[in-house]
């Protein structure tokens, strides 16, 4: 228990953060090189105004036709992404670790808010799982990797909820919680979770092409 704790909060934590940071830089670099080599037009068509217009519409709930056609998915995905982003960064138990290790701190969420947001993430993952299994058009596109990614995303929140509420075995679950968060960090650069960094560029390009060349809306 003690040596496991020291490993997951020491060397493994450093490794996870380094892979996350340098893996992301590497992925950006390799995607840029690939686009330069195979699709130089991307850089010609990119237009800041049309890019921001498209990103703005897609960051607004019900701001696109697709979102209006799938209202349940729209509500779930917005609540999911907001909670997924805010809870790990602003929950008190995490901020205190930044303070301990790097002597920096910031605003924290009230426990009840973090608790509800954690439940939102867990329930959203269940919704996404149901959707992948039940909707034929989604199942057709689903690979085993998609289920693994859902598990990678849900695990830190399930174990975090367990540890916070001190359900049986919470001490060991806390260590699994740390590992699961580190696995998620490591997975980000090398899986479709990387869309957290690439979405402004993919959305921005589509917006540029539709706005500047096709003269059409892309939302």
């Amino acid at each position, binding site marked *: 228990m003690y040596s496991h704790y020291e490993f997951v909060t020491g060397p493994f934590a450093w490794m996870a953060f380094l892979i996350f940071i340098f893996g992301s830089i590497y992925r950006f670099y390799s995607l840029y090189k690939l686009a330069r080599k195979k699709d130089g037009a991307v850089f010609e068509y990119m237009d800041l105004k049309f890019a921001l217009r498209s990103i703005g519409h897609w960051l607004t709930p019900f701001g696109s036709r697709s979102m209006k056609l799938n209202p349940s998915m729209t509500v779930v995905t917005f609540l999911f992404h907001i909670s997924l982003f805010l809870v790990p960064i602003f929950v008190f138990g995490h901020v205190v670790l930044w303070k301990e290790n790097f002597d920096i701190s910031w605003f924290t*969420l009230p*426990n009840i808010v973090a608790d509800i947001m954690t439940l939102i993430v867990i329930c959203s993952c269940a919704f996404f799982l149901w959707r992948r299994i039940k909707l034929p058009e989604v199942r057709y596109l689903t690979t085993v990797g998609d289920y693994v990614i859902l598990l990678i995303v849900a695990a830190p929140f399930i174990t975090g909820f367990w540890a*916070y509420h001190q359900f049986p075995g919470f001490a060991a679950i806390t260590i699994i919680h740390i590992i699961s968060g580190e696995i998620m960090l490591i997975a980000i650069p090398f899986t479709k979770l990387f869309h957290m960094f690439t979405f402004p560029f993919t959305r921005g390009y589509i917006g540029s092409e539709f706005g500047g060349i096709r003269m059409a809306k892309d939302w």
Partner: protein
Amino acid sequence: MNYSSAKPKKLFLNCIISAMKSIVPKGIFLTSLFLIISGTAFSNDCYTINGESLEDNTNTRPFVCFPHDEHNENAGLDDNCARCHHVYTDGQLMPDESSEDSSCSECHMSQEKPNDLDLIVRYHKLCRSCHLEEKKGPITCGECHKKP
């Protein structure tokens, strides 16, 4: 270390005490406080580490119930108060001095802009580093910050 005697379940006492402080004359307040403390001190050996300087806000975990005497007996610390109640002068540990008469916050929250987190972090580091070193005692959040 700065503690008040109260079970976690009786944390509401702290609120009552704060409220009383504002409305009851000091002498009467201290007498009643003494009665409350002596009443609870005999019924349990659990010190709630709230440091008085820490705010019980809605973002933090429950205050820690620290069984001081039981802990020191288990840890074999009977004569070594300074293991926790240390004294630093100009950044140097004074091995022959101890500080059980002063509160942790006197040193650890004395900066220009005191912050609850500064003191919380000190508790975490002091307790956990020793527990990891000795491979005994709680290390994860919920093992100390028990839900009432």
